[in-house]
């Protein structure tokens, strides 16, 4: 536990040691705000659904960018050997890294709060739906993070890690999209839709927080974190 906390602290600090963390945040915030306000004045409604419905696409680039470094850098610099020969369990190292990235994501989302606040000043905002949507964004983001960190465990190059992460996320998102599902027989389509990353999120941002949706995202995280543990095992075998 202490080992995990130390890793978490180190990884979280690493976002702020270089300018990268700030750059990510500025890009993330300006992109989401710009897309949102561009539509906001046209629709003329006190509603921030557009913000939440573009988040999966912004996350698609934003999240692999915050996870790409996590394993790739350790392997490239050889510090992996240092970490894995300290008295800390593999999963503690993994959780430390995962939670550090999660913390960074949470801070990014907190910084978008001025958006609903300013909307609520103009009109009548449904705060219940906003809070549910934020929970949805955290769940979706967590799933993306687990995929991104796994991607960073299978490459020696940050750019490759980033691309792999984005591609995995995109594919898992894609299989649940309407225009893909139309090409499948209905029974298979129903399963695919359920497996897609976006379907559950769309349900949640409509204001319905279903336990099955929560379980879905937790399962995605569990599966990719498990795969990541297998990566570590393969490294130990000399792969």
């Amino acid at each position, binding site marked *: 536990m202490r080992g995990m906390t*130390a890793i978490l*602290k180190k990884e979280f600090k690493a976002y702020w040691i*270089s300018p990268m963390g700030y750059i990510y945040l500025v890009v993330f915030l300006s992109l989401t705000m710009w897309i949102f306000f561009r539509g906001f004045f046209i629709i003329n409604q006190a509603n921030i659904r557009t913000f939440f419905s573009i988040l999966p696409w912004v996350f698609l680039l934003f999240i692999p960018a915050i996870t790409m470094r996590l394993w790739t850098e350790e392997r490239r610099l*050889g510090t992996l*050997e240092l970490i894995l020969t*300290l008295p800390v369990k593999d999963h503690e190292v993994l959780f430390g890294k995962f939670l550090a990235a999660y913390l960074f994501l949470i801070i990014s989302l907190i910084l978008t709060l001025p958006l609903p606040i300013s909307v609520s000043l103009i009109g009548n905002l449904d705060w219940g739906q906003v809070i549910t949507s934020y929970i949805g964004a955290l769940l979706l983001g967590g799933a993306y993070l687990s995929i991104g960190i796994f991607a960073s465990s299978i490459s020696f190059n940050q750019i490759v890690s980033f691309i792999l992460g984005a591609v995995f996320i995109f594919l898992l998102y894609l299989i649940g999209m309407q225009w893909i599902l139309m090409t499948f027989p209905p029974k298979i389509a129903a399963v695919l839709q359920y497996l897609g990353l976006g379907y559950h999120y769309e349900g949640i941002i409509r204001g319905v927080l279903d336990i099955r949706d929560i379980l879905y995202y937790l399962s995605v995280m569990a599966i990719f974190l498990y795969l990541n543990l297998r990566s570590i095992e393969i490294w*130990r075998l000399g792969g």
Partner: protein
Amino acid sequence: MIEVLNLKKRFATAVALDGVSFSVQKGEVLGFLGPNGAGKTTTMRIITGFLIPDEGTVKVGEYDVLEHPLEVKRLIGYLPEDNPIYQEMRVNEFLNFVAEIRGLTGAEKRAAIERVIETTGLESKYKKTIETLSKGYKQRVGLAQALLHDPEILILDEPTTGLDPSQIVEIRRLIKDLGKEKTIVLSTHILPEVQVTASRVTIINQGKIVAQGTLEELTQKAAEGESTYVELRANPEDVEQTFSSVPWIERFQRVEERDGVYRWAVRGPEGQDIRENLFKLAVEKNWTLLELWRERATLEEIFLHLTTEEVPA
């Protein structure tokens, strides 16, 4: 303290270890010597729990590294090859990070950091970013990290590689000091390094242990490989006949001939100096003795001999 038994490790492209066994006693400094690619790093990575062997066991203290990796890691301070550290961190941040992972907190942690800073002479670099330090100081940071929990065992993988001569001397002195109270395994491909620092040597080549013993034992072994050379102006048939009949000559060989002068390599019984006998013999037989000398194989030659020849399968 460390018991390595029949380690085997195969990588996709090559066999790295082919049945490595050795042991390290408490308090001794073991020099782990071998050319690059001999399997030193792989062995150390297995002992420290970074790699899992295909076969074989490692016991550190009373713990098996595969069954109790955390306990083993607590006993060991490890400086990996090429000293991987977080370049963008400050020295104190880095040591703080490792101390926290090692479970040190509060006053205990501060005392540990202070202690290793003093041991490794990093007082003036405490607040510096690691990447701005010279290679010698970086190496000290790596050592400091390995010493934080005051481990019983230190494992150092090529700790002086890439340093300049004065830095090498300093790091070696540091290791020698540490060796007074700790069990140390030190790998190197440079023989003088073990001569300076180690009390016992294990030589590895192509994934196999080819020799082990104290420096004295190995030097002794080297001495056994000595030959006496004698240059005589005399009838070679006569010399040959005489040499074969003399009891204290075990083997001899004609090495060279020039203008009627013959050079002979002669070997007497192990450990016996036969120069005097040869001189007397020459006088007795009325041979003209031009030169007489002894050549002793150095530790260096033994090392080269052991590590350049193909190891018989």
